[in-house]
């Protein structure tokens, strides 16, 4: 019985390495408006992601790519995907990401933010 409870607790416990890597939070926050152009887009995932198979890009409202093209998984934090941004004029921008979790799951998504 104790073993059964232990297994159940392990399965239900929140984990830092979800099988599917989903975003935990980001800067700028999903769907929010920032006062000034952010220096970078950063997305923290709920598990470690594979640097080789993970990508991130930012487009403006005209679908033109605006990021610096230096997207990477942060070497000190395997859950953080980031890309640098040049100074952005006011407008709406969309972030596209695709990641592979350490156990092979691929997830992808996109979200918008605005610069005031």
């Amino acid at each position, binding site marked *: 019985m104790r073993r059964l409870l232990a297994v159940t607790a392990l*399965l239900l416990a929140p984990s830092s390495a*979800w099988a599917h890597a989903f*975003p935990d939070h980001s800067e700028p926050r999903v*769907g929010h408006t920032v006062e000034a152009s952010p220096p970078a887009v950063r997305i923290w995932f709920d598990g470690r992601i594979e640097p080789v198979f993970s990508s991130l890009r930012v487009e403006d409202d005209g679908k033109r790519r605006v990021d610096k093209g230096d997207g990477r998984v942060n070497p000190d934090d395997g859950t953080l995907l980031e890309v640098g941004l040049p100074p952005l004029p006011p407008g709406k921008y969309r972030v596209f990401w695709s990641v592979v979790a350490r156990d*092979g799951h691929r*997830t992808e998504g996109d*979200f*918008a933010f605005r610069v005031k």
Partner: protein
Amino acid sequence: MRGKALFACALTVATVLTTLQPAQAHGLIGKRFLPATLATDDPFVADELALPTVSSIKVPGSGDGNRTWETDVSAEFSKRLSPDLGLSLLGTWKALNPDQGPSLTGFDNLEVTLKYVFFKDPEHETLVSAGVAWEVGGTGSKKVGSDSFDRVTPSLFFGKGFGDLPDSLEWFKPFALTGVFGYSLPIRVRTQTISIADDGSVDVARDLNPEIIKWGFSLQYSLQYLQSFVRDIGLPAPLNRMIPIVEFALQTPTDGKQAGHTTGTINPGIIWFGRYVQVGIEAQFPVNRATGKNVGVLAQLHFYLDDILPQVFTWTPFHGVLGPTQPR
């Protein structure tokens, strides 16, 4: 005669509750994660185990007012045979506790389902699949109303996320709809029941086994989708992995005395999904008096086998090891 009455009661209960058979699959289509639903089947094929699914609800008897609490405990194992073809086995143990008379317990018929996903549109978070379920007659206990004959139910399944709505409707993007439409055909048209009364007289009844439309759908609102793709509203765990849901599990016989009379339940509830498992609980509200008057409960613990042991559970005969379920 008492045995016949009990049999008729169990048969009625089983007929009313046919739509409550659990069936599940989870998966990703584009960026949309659809959980395994509890009361209706969804369109994915996957490697997973629902153990247990517990349903308890009071249902009408066979017309004599003898209502019955039915509790079902079931397990379903699902296995992909290819990336888009899946097979599942469902077994259910039933306990019937009528207002009057003894309680009855036993296993229901084994059910085998083959499903194929034939349309996928990740951009529009849409997929459609077709399947056929085979209820193997005679594998269950007659005393809990299991049929002695087979039933075959061809079905169509669909799933649709609304992430492709315009940004002006962004708060509606986390909604998703799944549904199933099936037609259940009995292999035997009529069942003959012979009973001997106390005075020695013999009664022969030949009951029609109706053809039944089994249909249902679920409307879901994914808080994970809201947080990750639409608007970060700062939900902490475990709320950020919850999916409020309402399921409609319905059936409509197309012939016999009950032709055209729909029964079933409306199930509001909530599902939480994690790394290896999901848990869900729903209330079961009867849609009409023919279904019952009492609110029931439906709960499920569900294991994502493709995540727990992908090298073992995602092996397939013709495509090798598929690995964990991927976005389509």
